């Protein structure tokens, strides 16, 4: 009788070990893997006249806590580096598509007049195509510095959530809840007309060291208008 119980216990223990050996790595891999899925939407756009000067404004990254949308310090997430990286990417893209960049003198004038800074503050609304009177005035003032100028505005809103979890007792799992929305818009400064708009949703936090960040930039700008002719 005692031997039977011992054998039964030993089989149960062996089964449990086998079960854990099989399921544990799978579960841990599933929880550790970064759940990334992207969704891209691009509004139909037109081609730009070949001499249209394009101003690529430094993108803006905002970080918020998912639970209560409280702003978090961007520097804690390499926000500045991300902005620079995205800016470089967009500038290179404009160059590779042989679009005309605004003159350096114009850039300086815009900076001196605080126009670049002021318009950057309004980026979250502008990328959604919401232009109030003040934004229109700012864009018009920018247009006065270089004729038929268009501006490329980009905004990334990162909602920092909790990581994925796994409870070995109940088998309950949860996925990471962080997500980032990359938005960009190309606007004609004189008329505040939206020429192109792109959007990519990343179900993760952007990582400066990951190749996926550049993939996301590429996806966002993939349908950016080309130069005419």
């Amino acid at each position, binding site marked *: 009788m005692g031997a039977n119980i011992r054998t039964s216990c030993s089989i149960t223990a062996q089964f449990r070990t086998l079960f854990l050996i099989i*399921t544990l790595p799978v579960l841990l891999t599933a929880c550790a893997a970064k*759940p990334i899925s992207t969704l891209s939407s691009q509004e139909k756009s037109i081609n730009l006249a070949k001499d249209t000067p394009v101003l690529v404004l430094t993108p803006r990254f905002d970080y918020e806590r998912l639970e209560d949308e409280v702003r978090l310090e961007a520097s804690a997430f390499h926000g500045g580096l991300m902005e620079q990286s995205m800016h470089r990417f967009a500038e290179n893209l404009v160059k590779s598509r042989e679009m005309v960049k605004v003159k350096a003198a114009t850039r300086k004038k815009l900076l001196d007049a605080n126009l670049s800074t002021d318009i950057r503050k309004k980026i979250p609304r502008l990328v959604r195509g919401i232009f109030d009177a003040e934004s229109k005035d700012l864009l018009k003032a920018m247009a006065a510095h270089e004729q038929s100028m268009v501006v490329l505005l980009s905004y990334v809103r990162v909602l920092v959530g909790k990581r994925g979890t796994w409870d070995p007792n109940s088998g*309950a799992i949860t996925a990471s809840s962080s997500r980032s929305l990359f938005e960009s818009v190309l606007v004609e400064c004189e008329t505040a007309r939206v020429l192109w708009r792109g959007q990519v949703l990343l179900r993760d936090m952007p990582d400066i060291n990951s190749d996926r960040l550049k993939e996301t930039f590429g996806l966002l700008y993939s349908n950016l208008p080309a130069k005419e002719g």
Partner: protein
Amino acid sequence: MSSISRRLRILVVLATVALVTGCGTLPQKKAIYIDSAYNPESVSGITLLSPIDARVDQTVEVELSKQLNELMKKILEERGYTANVLSDAPTGATLLKYDLKAADAKLIKTLGPDDARWVMILVLDDVTTQLTFGSTGNAEVSGFMFDKQNGTTVWRDKGIGRVGQGGLYGMVIKSVMDEKAIRMGVFNLSASVPLRRDK
């Protein structure tokens, strides 16, 4: 000996009382914003207006009114309020969450029917499901309550729903994960609505 036994008995009774009270208490949390002058007892009835679908990724099909408003109505009633759902309220579709966050008296007074004083709008920010070795569901729901008479925001909060189950069973029940996550999100959101004692 009898003194120890009596103390033990008192302890057991106290523990039971604590447990029963704990189980019967409705969940409560701190809201992102609540008007310091808000008095739940002065709220005669809350009108739930059409929910806003603020999702970028709309791949999951959601019955907004049923999954958000009907559930919130039940919860509000449990919390002591009278609530009614107005699915065809003349608001919602054209409003953005951003507008609600920055709502001024002028906008607030236009929300919902003229005879409603306390109006609530729920916003579905996101919902997603995922299949791994098991399945998970995440949902985010925001809520706003306005006092139309005074043109003020009285309550604003956000509820997060994170659910999931590992293993084969989890994989089988993936189709209900979005529903479970939204449900959890609405429950989580409602936990900051102050309880109304006087019905």
